[in-house]
């Protein structure tokens, strides 16, 4: 690997990512605003997986994208490795983009239908000028192998793949830059139960091997319990409960958590 996470670390004890009083708003057409994320504060340590659960439309996705600086933040701040991300400019921002990645819910939409798998996975490398030609191809193949994909798929178009394969391509694209932090936005909700288990296992093994930090967004408590060290429960843009996974899921304090829990079938 070309970049060792340890090199970039300023302080091994400090949290990798911290959000303080984060607010995200959308302006409505015809005036007025709609608050998607309303004053959220939390931290994610190195190597930790934080689960973010909540029902649809509670602001999970907005929060995840705000953390990565993909949508404008209305208030509060996010610091990544001690640096506030909204102040990042050009070259520093590009470095941050390399270290934090996003895995999508709907891989069918997140993969460009007109690019082949190889090009999709190699694109981040090309953007960052990290590898070209043969080196890039080798790295792409390695990454594909890492996510459990047949290297022969490299010349396929996304629409020629199954749902699970697509999801793995999506993960491969996120991993190819060897990031320290991943926002997994409901990465398994669009695939069948069987594939889901396999994918979750893959994500977990990838995290352990490289000591990555995850923000694992899901509305599926079973998946959360399988993946997460800590869990945050979100409702209407606020975090209503935050704690160790076992504690929150076995002994929910907030009514919303209880409600979520009762709706989930157990494995």
């Amino acid at each position: 690997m070309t970049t060792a996470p340890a090199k970039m670390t300023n302080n091994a004890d400090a949290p990798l990512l911290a959000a303080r009083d984060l607010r995200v708003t959308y302006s409505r057409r015809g005036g007025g605003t709609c608050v998607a994320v309303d004053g959220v504060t939390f931290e994610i340590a190195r190597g930790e997986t934080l689960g973010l659960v909540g029902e649809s439309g509670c602001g999970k996705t907005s929060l995840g994208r705000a953390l990565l600086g993909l949508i404008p933040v209305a208030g509060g701040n996010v610091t990544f490795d001690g640096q506030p991300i909204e102040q990042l400019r050009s070259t520093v921002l590009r470095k941050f983009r390399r270290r934090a990645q996003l895995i999508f819910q709907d891989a069918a939409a997140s993969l460009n239908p007109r690019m082949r798998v190889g090009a999709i996975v190699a694109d981040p490398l090309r953007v960052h000028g990290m590898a070209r030609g043969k080196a890039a191809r080798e790295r792409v193949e390695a990454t594909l192998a890492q996510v459990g994909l047949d290297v022969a798929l490299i010349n396929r178009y996304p629409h020629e793949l199954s749902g699970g394969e697509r999801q793995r391509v999506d993960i491969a694209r996120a991993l190819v830059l060897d990031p320290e932090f991943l926002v997994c936005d409901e990465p398994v909700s669009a695939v069948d139960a069987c594939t889901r288990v396999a994918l979750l296992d893959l994500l977990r093994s990838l995290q352990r091997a490289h000591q990555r930090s995850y923000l694992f967004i899901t509305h599926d408590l079973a998946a959360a319990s399988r993946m997460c060290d800590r869990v945050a429960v979100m409702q209407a843009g606020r975090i209503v409960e935050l704690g160790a996974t076992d504690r929150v899921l076995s002994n929910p304090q907030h009514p919303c958590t209880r409600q979520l829990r009762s709706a989930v079938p157990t494995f």
Partner: protein
Amino acid sequence: MNAGDVDMLPPRGRKRSALLLLPVLLLALVALGAPLLAWDQPIVCRHDGRLYFPALVVAGQNVPVIGGFLRRDVPFRYPDFVARSDLDATAFALWPLIRFNPDEYTDEALSPPSRAHWLGTDDRGRDVAARMLHGSTVSLRVGIFAMLLAGALGIAVGAVAGYFGGWNDGVLSRVIEATICFPALFLILAVLAWVGRGVGAVVVVIALTQWTLVARLVRAEFLRMRGADFVTAARSYGASPLWIALRHMLPGALAPATVTLVFGVADAILIEAGLSWLDFGVPAPAASWGGMLRSAYEQMRSAPHLVWPPCVAIFVSVLACHLAGVWLRGRIDPLAK
């Protein structure tokens, strides 16, 4: 001016047989190889003990890039100066199908179709069949170059408007709207008055009026893709706007734009012929279907045989482009879904 604005787009998404491409390929072959079909010099001939390829060389000069390197064959070195009679009669020669140059005056003026002149001759005694074949070169050249130019312009404007949206989009959309409302006829007069008449001017004129079709389409595609997850993904790993626009969004917009451009070639052929009809097109003596149509119109009572060749030629080439467009649409759409 824009009869082509009413194009026919059969249902989307059906796979089409590649046979639909056949007419347009034939048309392109005729356009490229017109001198092999009709010319006053042989394709191959032996002269003074050597082999020469006069008509072939002329045809080669129609080919972009290669044409620039080809020089006329030696015994025929004066461009078009040497008539058939200069070739010694006994020598071996492979002649084109029609042994007349499209600009050549024969002894029979306004003769109806005959064995010597399959489609007759016009008022100056030029072979109509030869002119019809050579007219395809002008039409196709204008059609293709106009659409390349219109495509470049339309894609650039549409991409900028669609990618940035907001203020940019507002202004550029107004520009597109304004172009549509603009009096095309005057644009034509102005361009011709400045640039002078010729293929180049006609290409510019057509491109300037037709680019909006592509621009609107590309803009809509870009707007649609702007919020797509794969664009967000590219942003998330740090791709620059230019990178995203060129590498991720453009290919998606290019496919439908190409379909529009293929249909646009038919429109351009139509407009070129229309301009020639109004006597604003490619100047004489170049054989152009619109010009033939105009002179047929003027002589329709004394020489009705002149009417049909240009009419059929325009119809067939437009039809060929439409069929190719239908095929392309069928090829491209399943991919997009």
